[in-house]
């Protein structure tokens, strides 16, 4: 390498800076993992960076016991809600992108604004609506609420990917007598799998991690999703850090697995969803 001294400095300093910061970014989760495997005596010594002498898996048993119904509920709610969001969103995106529609701009604008508005602003009427429909404390009620809140975003993410499919495909298909739904099912969706996966991951992680609606619309432990359950666990295991941390690890497994193994889609969903890149 024949870098000039100042160029080498230009390269080395940022590198050190990045490495130090990266360590700082990993530290909380490292401490969370080690603490979740310690006995209460070990936690009391506060040597948080030390590895546990004997991994105490009983913490996980105890936390899992408290969280398992919540985990089941979360999956029962999140999976169908994600599927419906993506399916309905992709149909709407198909229409908005591939068909000529006089009010497309207005519909689009309405959907974009809806996707960015924080849903906190409709929390009270939404709770009231679910109450009127007798959907409080039901799976259907939460799924319905998540559909209202998340389909605009799903529609937009999928629309950004559908836009990459040339219009001429649709025209050619129509001339050949292809029906609109056949085109959607056999051509458009298979061609846009990366986009649909990205949207599904974005929506899935958002619903799984959601807290406020879950808290407001459910209170029965047999229906309540896992995030409010974790909050309850935190409240009931005060100063039992090893149990709290084990619980936090358990509920994070699902989104972290998605993040690690499908990170390309996670990033592209994030980009399409928030920045419309």
């Amino acid at each position, binding site marked *: 390498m024949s870098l000039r001294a100042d160029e080498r400095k230009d390269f080395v300093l940022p590198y050190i800076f990045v490495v130090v910061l*990266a360590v700082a*970014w*990993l530290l909380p*989760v490292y401490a969370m993992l080690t603490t979740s495997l310690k006995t209460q005596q070990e936690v009391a010594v*506060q040597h948080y960076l030390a590895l546990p002498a004997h991994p105490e898996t009983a913490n996980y048993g105890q936390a899992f016991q408290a969280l398992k119904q919540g985990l089941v509920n979360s999956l029962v709610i999140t999976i169908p809600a994600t599927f419906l969001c993506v399916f309905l969103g992709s149909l709407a995106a198909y229409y908005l992108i591939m068909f000529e529609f006089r009010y497309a701009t207005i519909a689009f604008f309405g959907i974009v604004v809806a996707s960015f*508005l924080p849903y906190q602003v409709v929390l009270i009427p939404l709770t009231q609506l679910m109450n009127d429909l007798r959907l409080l404390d039901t799976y259907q009620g939460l799924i319905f609420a998540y559909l209202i809140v998340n389909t605009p975003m799903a529609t937009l993410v999928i629309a950004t990917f559908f836009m990459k499919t040339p219009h001429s495909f649709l025209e050619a298909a129509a001339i050949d007598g292809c029906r609109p739904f056949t085109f959607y099912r056999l051509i458009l969706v298979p061609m846009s799998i990366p986009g649909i996966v990205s949207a599904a991951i974005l929506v899935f992680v958002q619903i*799984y991690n959601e807290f406020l609606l879950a808290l407001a619309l459910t209170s029965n432990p047999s229906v309540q999703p896992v995030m409010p359950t974790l909050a309850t666990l935190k409240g009931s295991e005060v100063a039992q850090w090893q149990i709290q941390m084990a619980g936090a690890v358990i509920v*994070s497994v699902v989104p*972290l697995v998605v993040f690690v193994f499908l990170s390309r889609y996670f990033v592209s969903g994030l980009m399409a969803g928030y920045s419309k890149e």
Partner: protein
Amino acid sequence: MVFKKSYGFAYLTPVLVLTGILYLMIVWNLVASLTVWNGILPTWKWAGFANYLNLFSLERFWDNLRHNVIWLVVFIVPTTFLGFVLADFFSAMKRTEVVFRQIFLYPMALSYIVTGTLWAWMYDPSSGLVNSLLAAFHVDVARLGWIADPNIAIYCMIVAGFWQYVGFAVVVYLGAIRGLPTEMFEAARLDGASRVRVMFGITFPNVGHGTLITTTMLAIFTVKTFDLVYIMTGGGPGDHTEVLPFLMYQVAYSQRDFGMGTAISTVILLFAAIMVIPYSNWAIKKWVRE
């Protein structure tokens, strides 16, 4: 167009209905905020602006609003800045870039409830990680109370948000920087401009859209800070970490004053609309151009 329109419209209907319900809820909220609504069911008894006047007379409301503004400033500026700096470094790296990007991005996959549980422990005055670490390095700052200290609690909470969101800023800026033509940098390097000069004199002014996206999205996030407040401090000590969504929840679900609760929602809506509507306009224009 090639397919019959009337038939195709059915595709749009479900999303239109769902989004319609969302807007209907906003209108419902606005109307309810002008009525008396104590207890379980809405009474629809007209109250004019009474809820708003009561709300504005609360010192707690202005405290909350101030906390929201603190979040806006103290959260957005450092997150955006570090995100840009890291993205600039990463854009010059080869293979290691992916690894580093992942390290800064993984908190985005966590729930705020997880982040809050984790950071609440780290900040615990008597047994938290932060004080233990400081003690290990013999930085004895008299064991600060962190989120139990009214003067710094909100800033400690913002640090947790910062930790979670820097990765988002990195990814947005990385995309923006990658989109710039490389000649732009080469010319500057040949002229002998230093790395810092290139970074802030050339790169930063040319990724304005990245800055707009990052700051707007982070600003919208600050409206959603309810979860962190709920899990980390419950608004305390006193009301020192409360923000408007938290006050709304308290007023509506604990005090059962839904009239004032909906009035707070309306204030939050205004707050959000100021950012969301122009941003949506911009995003759509950018989209249509492409």
